């Protein structure tokens, strides 16, 4: 499979990269690990005239622990996150999520955390060859006006956000730093996602995700990530969930649950806080209730965008949500491998 032609730049520093983004505008894509973008280019789904490589930007390839938490450059390789001891010790949910991305020799040594967060949405009717798409109407995401994944069609794109790292990072209240030539803004990670299938990110054409900021671990907190796929490697999630549970004296004081792979963006379950707050951490009945809520919330979004049946994926939201919340709560209570440093 051949790549279409494009021009290639390898800026030496971030400033130069942002200059290039500014001048090329929408015809340009940022090239990080390439494991997602280059496949899409081969399939003819995107055809940027310019690629701006992050290869030489060492300032984006740094991961470090600060007093405020974890600071991860957007171009940090997934394998470097996995190898970073503080992540193994204090952010087990993040470790689980990054480990679950693709496979070691595909994504881990090439793919970057920024690339995983910024990957385009997926759909079984869209992520196909030109040949497959040639004989059918152009779908919303490809610039047309139909949706094959939504029963009866739709004027909206119903692709799914397949980032494994987004749900857990959002659950942990991670922030992202977005830069353009003239501006730097820091915002909650969830605001990176537009929930618009056609254009799932809120980044402007001249903007780049440069950093992810993960809050420092607090005493009594726990995180967990769960993913369901047919195979234990390579596959995208049918359903995933990131959970954060903060406890005090054995009771839940703050909790977040974010479901991945089911909606156009990571799906925050709003009712989780109300149901679990002040209940004993790990209260199975309360977690079950939240899990059902998560399923009902997700049911409104799940489309036929994967080869696995919609009904099954919908049911699985409750199971995966329950497992993520349960394990996060267990970790919060036991504090195992999470707060040893404090």
């Amino acid at each position, binding site marked *: *499979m051949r790549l279409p032609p494009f021009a290639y730049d390898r800026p030496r520093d971030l400033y130069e990269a942002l200059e290039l983004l500014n001048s090329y505008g929408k015809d340009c894509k940022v*090239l990080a690990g390439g494991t997602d973008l280059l496949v899409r280019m081969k399939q003819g789904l995107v055809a940027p005239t310019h690629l701006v*490589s992050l*290869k030489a930007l060492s300032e984006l390839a740094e991961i470090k622990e600060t007093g405020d938490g974890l600071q991860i450059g957007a171009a940090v390789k997934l394998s470097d996150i996995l190898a970073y001891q503080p992540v193994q010790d204090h952010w087990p949910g993040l470790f689980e999520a990054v480990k679950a991305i693709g496979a070691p*020799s595909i994504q881990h*040594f090439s793919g970057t955390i920024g690339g995983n967060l910024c990957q385009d949405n997926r759909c079984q009717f869209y992520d196909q060859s030109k040949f497959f798409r040639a004989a059918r109407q152009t779908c919303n995401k490809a610039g047309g006006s139909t949706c094959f994944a939504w029963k009866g069609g739709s004027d909206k794109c119903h692709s799914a956000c397949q980032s494994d790292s987004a749900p857990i990072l959002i659950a942990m209240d991670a922030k992202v730093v977005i830069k353009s030539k003239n501006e730097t803004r820091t915002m909650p990670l969830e605001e990176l996602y537009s929930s618009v299938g056609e254009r799932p990110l809120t980044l402007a054409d001249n903007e780049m995700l440069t950093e992810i900021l993960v809050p420092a671990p607090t005493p009594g907190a726990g995180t967990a990530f769960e993913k369901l796929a047919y195979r234990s490697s390579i596959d995208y999630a049918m359903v995933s969930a990131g959970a954060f549970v903060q406890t005090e004296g054995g009771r839940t004081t703050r909790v977040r649950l974010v479901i991945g792979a089911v909606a156009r963006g990571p799906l925050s379950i709003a009712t989780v806080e109300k149901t679990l707050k002040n209940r004993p951490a790990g209260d199975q009945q309360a977690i079950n209730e939240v899990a059902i809520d998560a399923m009902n919330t997700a049911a409104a979004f799940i489309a036929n965008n994967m080869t696995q049946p919609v009904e099954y994926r919908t049911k699985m939201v409750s199971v995966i949500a329950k497992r993520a919340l349960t394990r996060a709560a267990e970790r919060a209570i036991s504090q195992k491998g999470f707060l040893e440093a404090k």
Partner: protein
Amino acid sequence: MNKQPLEISINGDCYSLAVEPNRTLLELLREDLDLTGAKEGCGEGVCGGCTVLMDGKPVRSCLTLALEASGTHITTVEGLAQKGELDPLQQSFIEHGAVQCGFCTSGMLMAAKGLALNNPHAGNKEIRNAISGHICRCTGYTKIIEAVEAVVDRSLEKR
């Protein structure tokens, strides 16, 4: 599109080349340099047949622009043997019957080599994990895992 300069070391040989931006590392190896050991089984990074080492780490050459490999050291399956002497992994693959049709073999070897370089203490689970991004239709993986385990074991003995 204009060709751009590329300085690259492949299996210990240094090349000064000019390549088009849309040339993948796999195309460079196979079509320009006749290093056909890396295989294109899918072209989208899934099968693992095109895996090479870039500065000692296994990467998919079908999803790596040749220009992105600028300044790096690439090892392909052709570079595993040193002066006619097979790498212990190659020898182990032969002895354990880990090779059937051979199409996945070079990718498997490079993933195994990457593991051996980065984690010489790897156990069964790590080995399975390291090759789980590689699809083999012939062997059921058992003998491949045994072949890698044997080399890891040997390296442990030396300690």
